């Protein structure tokens, strides 16, 4: 096809959406970058002052620390638990049924989840009744683990589905060949199947990482804008700054977060590409 015609056709199909994306995301983000270097009230250029104020802010570091800890605990837990369930489900006749069961939490609206968490994790809730204890899980450091549980509960379904799709795409004759050569169940998994799941592994990691930000919903609906300290995440911070109209601090923080995420995503793409070629 002629180059000019190709451009024209491409623009015809993509431009309507692209205009909106430029208008609602790309251009305003440039404005956010500009604002991060100016004072919100006067619009004067203030250099790195906003960034300095963000980095001096204690709530910011609390949120960063909690979010980092949350991610560091949740990702490995979710990946391993998902892999374990997917292994149980591979070549299992009832796989379809169990996948549906595991996906069910995806359909549960967050307000509903929040209400049930209150019934389970309050001082007089089901968990304490089961354990015979009287711990206020939401009001102590345990609130962090409630959030972890909630995250794994909600995200396990698609993790299992992705792992399982990866496992099914490993050709049968490779595993058969390994078995004929005398490899047992364990060795087939470790040496034949797992190395082929690299791509799926990267995918699940990126998706689950970005879903950690959505845990804010349940946390917010259970405990409001200022939850127990250990549950205070970056999302809470952004929300509270937005509500207080601290736009200069917020724009600096948004630029930082976007930068960190961009580096993370590109790094993963690079690793992923290499994993694919190998």
């Amino acid at each position, binding site marked *: 096809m002629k*180059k000019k015609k*190709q451009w024209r*056709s*491409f623009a*015809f*199909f*993509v431009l*309507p*959406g*692209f205009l*909106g*994306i430029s*208008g*609602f*995301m790309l251009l*305003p*983000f440039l404005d956010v970058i500009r604002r991060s270097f100016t004072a919100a009230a006067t619009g004067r250029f203030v250099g790195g002052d906003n960034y300095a104020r963000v980095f001096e802010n204690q709530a910011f570091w609390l949120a960063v620390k909690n979010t980092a800890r949350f991610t560091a605990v949740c990702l490995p837990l979710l990946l391993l638990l998902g892999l374990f*369930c997917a292994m*149980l489900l591979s070549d*299992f006749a009832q796989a379809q049924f*169990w996948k549906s*069961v595991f*996906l*069910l939490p*995806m*359909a549960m*609206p*967050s*307000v*509903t989840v929040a*209400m*049930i968490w*209150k019934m389970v994790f*309050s*001082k*007089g809730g*089901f968990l304490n*009744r089961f354990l015979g204890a009287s711990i206020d899980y939401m009001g102590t450091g345990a609130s962090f683990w409630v959030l972890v549980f909630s995250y794994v509960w909600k995200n*396990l379904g698609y993790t299992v*589905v992705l792992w399982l*799709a990866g496992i099914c795409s490993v050709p049968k004759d490779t595993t058969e060949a390994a078995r004929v050569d005398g490899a047992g169940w364990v060795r087939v998994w470790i040496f034949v199947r797992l190395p082929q799941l690299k*791509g799926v592994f990267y*995918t699940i990691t*990126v998706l689950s990482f970005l879903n950690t*930000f959505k845990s*804010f*919903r349940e946390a*917010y609906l259970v405990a409001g804008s200022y939850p127990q300290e250990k549950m205070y995440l*970056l999302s809470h911070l*952004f*929300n509270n700054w*937005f509500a207080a109209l601290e736009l200069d601090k917020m724009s600096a923080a*948004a630029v930082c977060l*976007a930068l960190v*995420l*961009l580096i993370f*995503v590109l790094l993963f*793409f690079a690793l*992923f590409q290499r994993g*694919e070629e190998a």
Partner: protein
Amino acid sequence: MKAVFRRGKQIGLTLFRIVLLALPGVFMVLPVLLLLSGSIMSAQELSDYFRPLWEDTGDYIGWRFLARYPVWDHYVRLLFFTPPFLNAFWNSVKLTAAILLSQLVLSVPAAWGFSVYRFRFSRFLFLVYVVLMLMPFQVTMLSQYIVLNGIGVMNTHLALILPAAFSTFPVFLIYRGFRDLPRELLEAGRIDGAGEWDLFIRIGLPLASGNVLAAGVLGFLEYWNMIEQPLAFLEDLSLWPLSLYLPADAAGQEGIAFAASVILLIPAIFVFLLGRDYLEKGIVASALKE
């Protein structure tokens, strides 16, 4: 004899698997049962069970999965005597429908454009779309606010519909559906004199349908459950969607809260069950494999 032994081993293994899967599985299903059973309990029964939750009696919450005297009071009150609830319900329907429809109209052609016309710029732009798709709401919240405020749609439903309509996730998902596009067919069509638009209608649309449904199911679950956006962009409570509607203080209102949750859950479960295969397909397609 050997065959019997092998059969026994197989049954044992299957049982073992079921037990291991049921452990997490119970936690996935129990909340739904809890809601259903609670929504038909009388206010009296619920307040008995819930007292230890609101007052520090040192006692624990109780439960029966079959109500002592099943009642429909809560549903009747919500559906016939609580106008704000119905209002919130219709807000949700309106928002979700508007978002999904506009996403459909915008993203199917865009996905087609990206997969048919591949040159350096289109590939780069697609990467930008993927990165945008992966940015959480907190990063884009301020940018969206600036524009929405500028064009004067803050505190209206348009403030939620417009940014969501241009989400890049459905573009990505539908693009994946065109992966196995038969390129020879396109060339053959062009030689026969078909225009680019004809090719899109004749070849693109039928090919896209599966992933469009997948995007629809995932999108429905996402937007039916919108929390952050209405919280940030809508001040007027009468505009809020159902996903934020629950009696402010649940003490004494448990029955209403349960019934409201069930009503909120029904469309989600319905879409979930109908679109289960597409949901799965969508999840697999969103895998970032090129």
